[in-house]
């Protein structure tokens, strides 16, 4: 959805039938006209953009690349009007701690050490073609 100064039609990204169903979950809601439906749909999209942006700022501040629930929570906390209606609805944290940072930056390679001189890997005994030189796994390639 783009905001243009020309007369381009604004098209919300969501199926309007679904937006209407969500609006009508509250039994006290009577009727909703098409312009109200349109605006709720558009503002819902703006809401996602806003919250995604604020969450991403938190993610970036923590030097992470994956936007997580906790980042959303912090973003919500930082914006009072949003926090008022949303903070208590957010799921509780599923894990108490992040994984250690070393796992994220330095994934452990499968084969760690070169074999000592004069020995062979046990896998070599299972290679049928003993005439061929053992298969080397070149860890430097990525």
């Amino acid at each position: 959805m783009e905001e243009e100064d020309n007369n381009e039609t604004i098209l919300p990204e969501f199926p309007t039938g679904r937006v209407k169903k969500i609006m009508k979950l509250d039994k006290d809601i009577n009727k909703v006209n098409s312009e109200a439906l349109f605006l709720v749909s558009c503002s819902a999209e703006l809401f996602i953009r806003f919250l995604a942006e604020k969450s991403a700022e938190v993610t970036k501040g923590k030097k992470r690349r994956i936007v997580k629930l906790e980042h959303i929570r912090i973003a919500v906390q930082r914006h009072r009007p949003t926090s008022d209606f949303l903070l208590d609805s957010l799921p509780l944290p599923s894990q108490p701690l992040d994984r250690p940072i070393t796992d994220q930056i330095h994934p452990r390679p499968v084969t760690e050490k070169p074999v000592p001189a004069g020995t062979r890997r046990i896998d070599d005994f299972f290679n049928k073609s003993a005439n061929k030189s053992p298969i080397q796994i070149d860890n430097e390639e990525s």
Partner: protein
Amino acid sequence: MVTSSGLLEMEDNMAAGASINAQYDDDDNYIREQERLLPIANVVRIMKQILPPYAKISKEAKETMQGCVSEFIGFVTCEASEKCRKERRKTVNGDDVCWALETLGLDEYAGPMKRYLHRYREHDRADHRANQEKG
């Protein structure tokens, strides 16, 4: 239209069961996700338009965002509807939605929505005139 990956996402959502997305009606009937959440693909697509290209989103965060949008919709609609009730009107209109956004302190949405409402009504009037001219 539900694609096979869309179905898979829905199953994953139900298995994950993030509390924001679990809902029951007054008769304790589980309200299906198709009825109370926007499609996760749409939600994620909009998020990705905002996030830097290298960023990823955890599954939990995607589901949470899905739930947050429904909360937002419910919150705004409720406020708009309340205004109608007090004024003894039965139909929520665009002005009510704008008013609700402002009242709830969501000014960053209220401004753009007023402009959109104006253009929507202009567009609507133009359509109406065109239809009348057709006879």
